[in-house]
C-alpha cells in the first residue's frame, strides 16, 4: 500500500471551519472479495463508457476487514431484523382496499427480482422519476388505500431492504435516457455544483479524491448500490437520501429533504455512476 503525503490548496473558509491540517494519506481500495452465502457479489467492475473512473468500486472495498465481515453473513448483518419486518409487511393486509403487497405482486422473490437494480425509475402514473420508496407509497395510498409510510420509518426501510434483497448480486442498471434524461441531467448538475459554507461538491471528494483518507475516514467513490444500508454511525439502517443529507451537513450546506426532486435526481445520477456493480442491499458500513 502506497502512502504519500499531499498538500492541498483549500479555501480559507474551510481552514477556519475545520482547523485544517495539510496532510493526507492515500490508501487504495482493498482487494477483498465479497461472498454472501456462497454467492459472489461484484464489488469491482470496469467502468462503463463515459465514466470519470477507470474502475468502479463498491464502498465495501474501502472498509476494514472487521466491517466487511459483517456483510458476508446475513446472520451477522445487523440490517436483517428490518428485512424480517419487510418480509412480514409484504404479506400484511393494510388499508381500505383490503390488500397486501402480495395481493398484486405475489411472490416477491419473483416479482421484485431486478427491481432495485433499476431504481430510481420513471413512475408512469406520477409522471416523473421516483425512488423505490415513492413507488411503494404510491401502491400504498392509491392501490391499497393505506397511509403512506414515512421515508426513514422502520416499515419503509424494512420494505426497501426486503425488495432490494431480491436483486442482491444483480448489476445496477438504471435508465438514464428517454423520460429519465431530465432527472439524470438535473442530478449530474447537482453532483458537480459546489455548495455550502465549505464550497464543496460531491465530485470534490468522491470523484477526485476517493481512496484517500479524510482524517480517519477512507473516502469511497460514493457508490449507492448497498442502500438501504446499516451504518455503525447511525446504529441502524438508513436510506441513501439520509446519507446525502449527512454529506450536505458536513460541507455546511442546507440539505434538501428526503424524497425531494433534487435527491431523487441525485440518486438516479449517482446510481448511474455505479452501473455494473452488484446490488448489495442491505449493506453494512461504518
Amino acid at each position, binding site marked *: 500500500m502506497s502512502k504519500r503525503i499531499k498538500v492541498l490548496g483549500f479555501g480559507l473558509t474551510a481552514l477556519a471551519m475545520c482547523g485544517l491540517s495539510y496532510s493526507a494519506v492515500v490508501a487504495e481500495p482493498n482487494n477483498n472479495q465479497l461472498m454472501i452465502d456462497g454467492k459472489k457479489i461484484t464489488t469491482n467492475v470496469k467502468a462503463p463508457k463515459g465514466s470519470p473512473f477507470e474502475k468502479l468500486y463498491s464502498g465495501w472495498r474501502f472498509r476494514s476487514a472487521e466491517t466487511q465481515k459483517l456483510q458476508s453473513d446475513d*446472520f451477522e448483518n*445487523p440490517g436483517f431484523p428490518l428485512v424480517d419486518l419487510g418480509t412480514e409487511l409484504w404479506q400484511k393486509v393494510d388499508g381500505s382496499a383490503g390488500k397486501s403487497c402480495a395481493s398484486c405482486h405475489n411472490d416477491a422473490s419473483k416479482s421484485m427480482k431486478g427491481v432495485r437494480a433499476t431504481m430510481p425509475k420513471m413512475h408512469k402514473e406520477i409522471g416523473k422519476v421516483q425512488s423505490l420508496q415513492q413507488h411503494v407509497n404510491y401502491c400504498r395510498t392509491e392501490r391499497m388505500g393505506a397511509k403512506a409510510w414515512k421515508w426513514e420509518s422502520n416499515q419503509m426501510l424494512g420494505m426497501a431492504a426486503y425488495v432490494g434483497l431480491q436483486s442482491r448480486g444483480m448489476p445496477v442498471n438504471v435508465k438514464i435516457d428517454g423520460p429519465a434524461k431530465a432527472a439524470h441531467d438535473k442530478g449530474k448538475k447537482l453532483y458537480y455544483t459546489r455548495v455550502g459554507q465549505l464550497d464543496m461538491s460531491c465530485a470534490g471528494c468522491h470523484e477526485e479524491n476517493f481512496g484517500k483518507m479524510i482524517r480517519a475516514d477512507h473516502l469511497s467513490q460514493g457508490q449507492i448500490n448497498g442502500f438501504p444500508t446499516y451504518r*455503525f454511525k447511525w*446504529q441502524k439502517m438508513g436510506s441513501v437520501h439520509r446519507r446525502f443529507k449527512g454529506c450536505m451537513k458536513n460541507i455546511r450546506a442546507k440539505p434538501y429533504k428526503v424524497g425531494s426532486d433534487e435527491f431523487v435526481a441525485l440518486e438516479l445520477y449517482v446510481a448511474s455512476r455505479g452501473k455494473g456493480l452488484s446490488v448489495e442491499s442491505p449493506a453494512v458500513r461504518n
Partner: protein
Amino acid sequence: MARPRVKVPKSASKDEVITIKTLISHKMESGQRKDKKTGEKIPRKIINKFTAKFNGTQVFAVDIEPAVSANPFLQFTVKVPESGEFEFTWLDDDGKTYSAKKKITVN
C-alpha cells in the same frame, strides 16, 4: 420493538460442538446521551441479560451493560448431547422479555 434472530444448525452428531449466532434489534439506549432539544439525559433502556437453555438447562448466559452495541450480537458454542430444543431469552430494562426457540436433531 425488539426482533430476535437466531441461527442454530438443524442437526448435529452426538456431542458435537455447534456454533450459535443471535442478534436482536434493540436501540440499547445507554443512559449517557442527552436529548438535543431539552438537554436532559435520555433514560437508560437496554437488553441487560441473555440466556440460552437447552432442554430446560441453562448452557450459556450473558450479563449485558450499556457498552454493548445497538442490536446486540452474540456468538457462542454448545456441546449437544441429544436431540432437543433451545430456548433463548433476552431481558429488557423495562421488564419485557423476548424469546426464540429452535429445535436440533442429534443423529
